[in-house]
């Protein structure tokens, strides 16, 4: 019975407003005679929809790390003496760098909102694609990159949706705004560039000397930044 009252009281305070939970924690911690260092469990940074989107954000970090590794493999392939395509090597290295930086940024964001990172949260279809090859021909590699970027973009849209459209309690404009500023617009730029490159290369490979065309195209990539 006592337990029930305590639980009920807790629920009432929780519904009455989450604003003074930390304060009550502090009052209790300061009143007790024994030192209670871990008594302030409610003085965390969690609010809004972070609890609801946390698993998605954790998985999103791990997907970025995997993509960063995959782009590094693609860059490595273009750096070998037989391929020797500095432009392709550069765009994939730049993509690898930016996925890595974004992974770190996302981890910082998760902790900013009171969350904890979980490195075991992965998408099975992302990490278990064992027959995926990263030793690709030029046009193939651009196509693969375009698909990977679209998948990342659509994942960002999905998480954004979780924080905006669902139940009223899950509405979290701060999460949506972060995703828009740090990811959504960048994705649009990269996707547009990759699509343009694919289109150019498609035209060039159709010409009389596709081998020379590839050399010139690679030379162009060397001087431009994709991210």
């Amino acid at each position, binding site marked *: 019975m006592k337990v029930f009252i305590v639980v009920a009281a807790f629920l009432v305070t929780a519904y009455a407003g989450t604003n003074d939970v930390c304060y009550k924690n502090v009052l209790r911690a300061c009143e007790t005679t024994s030192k209670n260092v871990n008594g302030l469990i409610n003085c965390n940074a969690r609010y809004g929809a972070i609890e609801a989107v946390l698993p998605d954000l954790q998985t999103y970090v791990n997907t970025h790390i995997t993509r960063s590794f995959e782009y590094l493999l693609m860059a490595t392939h273009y*750096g070998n003496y037989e391929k020797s395509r500095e432009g392709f090597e550069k765009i994939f290295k730049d993509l690898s760098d930016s996925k890595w930086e974004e992974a770190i940024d996302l*981890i*910082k964001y998760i902790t*900013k909102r009171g969350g904890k990172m979980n490195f075991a949260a992965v998408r099975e279809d992302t990490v278990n694609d064992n027959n995926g090859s990263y030793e690709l*021909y030029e046009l193939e590699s651009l196509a693969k990159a375009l698909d990977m970027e679209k998948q990342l973009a659509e994942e960002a849209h999905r998480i954004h949706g979780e924080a905006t459209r669902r139940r009223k309690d899950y509405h979290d404009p701060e999460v949506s705004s972060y995703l828009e500023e740090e990811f959504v617009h960048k994705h649009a730029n990269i996707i547009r560039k990759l699509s343009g490159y694919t289109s150019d290369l498609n035209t060039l490979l159709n010409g009389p000397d596709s081998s020379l065309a590839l050399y010139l195209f690679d030379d162009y990539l060397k001087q431009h930044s994709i991210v």
Partner: protein
Amino acid sequence: MKATILILLVVAAFSVSTAQLQCFHRKPDIPTDWIDMVNPCVRKMRDQVQEELKAAIQYLAMGAHFSRDTINRPGFAKLFFEAASEERQHAMKLISYLLMRGELASDVSNLIRKHIEPQTADWKDGVSALKDALKLEASVTRKIHDVIKVCEDPQNAGNNFNDYHLVDYLTGEFLEEQYKGQRDLAGKISNLDKMMDKHAALGEYLFDKKLLSGEI
């Protein structure tokens, strides 16, 4: 019926496109006698790429832990996030070296595992994380030693070859950084440990602020 038409359309589209586009080009004819690295040594180097990335992820987990709201040690987090990116750079340096020597022209897809999990994700306090970092660096140093041992052994796998250049590179660049980094970590552990002697909480708090401002 619909499916057959669809398949026909796909096949037609595919054959038209292959007829038009020349996506694949011949392999160039390049002499290969300049490529002189021997196999056991290349294998060791490839493994070391993975080791560096494992260290990168371990540091990432440390950065994530100290960034948490209820841990709140931004100085430690900064130190470990930077260390993570440095480890990734080491992996990339090893790859660049192999490419320079004519290696990694094939079998690139399995060079890196797609998912690496950190061995530890929680630490009692800052000093225990620094101690873990020092142990991690010591184990990486031992692994670089192992690479050197294999690569400078002319007896290895019957190939009469001592890879002087690689061994010099690993010694001069990698071991140099390992030993300096280890001394730096040991110094940090020493200072923090002594600061925490009487006032553990205050010691760690002050040390974290110093790490954050870049004073230490």
